């Protein structure tokens, strides 16, 4: 039994520029999947290739064992919610949502019923005769969503769906998206450059860089066990210390830090990955440094400590324990928590 959606050895170049490089990926049914990465990593190209809006140079895409690439874009059971929403400005909200059903040539009653139902789901039934220009950003986004899911696609693609919304509406829409995905029972593939968004919303994440998938994992796995330095750097706040492994410790800028067992050979260059919340302050520690600055984030405070490395060390601290700026802090952590990655 093969996966619901399987992408095999997909490649796409724009002239000299590589957009997707021999990419393979499997996505399960009803999964909320996120394609995450910096701009230009190929995630949007991959999304557009799935929708058929972009041709590919090589590789295969199979949806339930059916060759997706041989289907023209307008016949694929895949709908896309555009980043700009792409609502048709000359049609009403209702006509926008009904547009796709009308193209299927469904009976009028069914179109009316399904359109009204989905508009009710996104609470826009009262606005159905409005023009898109009369809607707020959040409402436009919900119309775009309704327009895509009313077609009951096998896969719903979302291109940076929340990037145009302000922060408060954003978190509401995140919940909304999750609820809808649950209710509709549709596989969602979301493209985003925002790691927090991907972490909070997706079942699994594929982190992409330069046309390749670097790691596929659940948000928790990806946070806890980043496979490469790129992943560690991209996902969440992190301290990345570049140094060399010795027989029993890790040498960074002339300082020796303790490490747990590692498969990496002694003498090799490596990166020590330390999450700010893994570090504790105490009367003594593995390293010490002066507190340079503290940034208050409400629930927690992020301290920046100069330990003589090429970067300031970030440490999470609860509010009532924040030392005065200029104090010398002693940093320690459980060596088993820290991850060592090869730096090649």
């Amino acid at each position, binding site marked *: 039994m093969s996966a619901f959606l399987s992408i095999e050895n997909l490649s796409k170049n724009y002239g000299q520029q590589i957009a997707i490089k021999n990419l393979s990926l499997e996505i399960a049914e009803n999964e909320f999947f996120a394609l995450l990465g910096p701009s230009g990593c190929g995630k949007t190209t991959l999304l557009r290739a799935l*929708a*058929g*809006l972009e041709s590919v140079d090589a590789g295969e895409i199979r949806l339930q064992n059916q060759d997706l690439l041989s289907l023209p*874009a*307008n*016949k694929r059971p*895949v*709908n*896309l919610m*555009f*980043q*700009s929403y*792409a609502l*048709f*400005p*000359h049609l009403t909200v209702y006509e926008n949502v009904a*547009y*796709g059903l009308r*193209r*299927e040539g469904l009976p009028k009653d069914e179109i009316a019923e399904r359109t009204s139902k989905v508009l009710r789901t996104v609470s826009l039934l009262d606005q159905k005769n409005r*023009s*898109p*220009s*009369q809607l707020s950003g959040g409402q436009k986004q919900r119309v775009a969503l309704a*327009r*895509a899911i009313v*077609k009951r696609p096998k896969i719903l693609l979302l291109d940076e769906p929340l990037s145009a919304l302000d922060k408060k509406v954003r978190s509401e829409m995140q919940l909304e998206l999750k609820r809808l995905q649950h209710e509709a029972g549709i596989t969602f593939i979301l493209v985003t450059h925002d790691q927090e968004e991907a972490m909070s919303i997706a079942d699994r994440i594929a982190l992409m860089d330069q046309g390749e998938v670097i790691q596929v994992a659940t948000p928790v796995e990806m946070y806890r066990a980043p496979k490469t330095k790129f992943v560690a750097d991209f996902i969440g706040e992190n301290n990345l210390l570049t140094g060399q492994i010795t027989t029993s410790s890790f040498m960074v800028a002339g300082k020796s830090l303790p490490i747990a067992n590692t498969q990496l050979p002694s003498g090799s260059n490596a990166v020590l990955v330390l999450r700010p919340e893994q570090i504790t302050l105490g009367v003594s520690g593995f390293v010490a440094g002066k507190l340079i600055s503290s940034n208050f984030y409400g629930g927690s405070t992020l301290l920046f400590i100069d330990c003589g490395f090429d970067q300031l060390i970030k440490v999470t601290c609860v509010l009532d324990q924040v030392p005065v700026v200029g104090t010398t802090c002693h940093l320690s952590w459980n060596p088993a928590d820290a991850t060592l990655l090869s730096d090649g």
Partner: protein
Amino acid sequence: MAQALVKTERDANQRRALISRSIFLIPGLAYITIFMLVPLGFIFFYTFLTRGTYGGVEYIFTLENYTRALDSLYVGILMESIMIAAAATLLAFLIGFPTAYAITKLPSNWQNVFLLLIVLPFWTNFLIRTYAWIVLLNTQGFLNKGLINTGLINQPLEFLYKPGAVILGLLYAFLPLMILPIYSALVRIDPAMKEAAINLGASPSQAFRQITLPLALPGVLVGAIFVFVPSIGNFIVPELLGGGKTVMVGNLIRDQFLKARDWPFGSVLAISMVVMLLILFFLQARVNKAVLGEKSG
């Protein structure tokens, strides 16, 4: 005391702002008022006056100029003008839309080159461009020679001095004015619109008809106004290519002012042309708002 000082300071600031605003705005707006708005007022005023014996007007109020405009002779000329201008507009659309659409498909640096090539003739001498058609279409002209040489015809054909030649000349003169607004309407359409239509199951031709075409409609209408209005008011093309046999509103207005010396009647004709322009622009704005849901365009 201190407050009073602040107040005079603030007044002085406001005065300075007013002065600088006046320096920038007044010369231009005054110029337009004196040399366009006031003269238009004159013309409107003239429509109610009686013609003078040697041109000019006599200040005797009358509505006769308006009733005269409804004379079947002038209504006939107006209808013919409208038909000719409409034919030129329709042809300009049929040629201009695919041309503009083709330009949008080019790489962006080539788009500028082709747009320049399209507008370049428009910025050159109108008389000369019209005259060039005489060179081409005359009975002994290039086209006839070519047709005779290829054996398609034995006798030279008379292309000129027919309504068709006037339509051709107007089309030639104003085609760029159709292409430009359509082009700018087309390039402003988010490419995601068409992709969204296709993604929702529309075939490419459905997406074109249902999405691209309606969204380009405001541009098409601007182009249509830009071709239609100057065509109606043109008197050079009918004179040079129509041989004076086709009289259009433009010729009529010219003759009332420079030959017949009936300024009040000429004013009625000119004002009707201006009113037609205003109505067309009003309609365009309505369509623009309906299509794009916004006022500007």
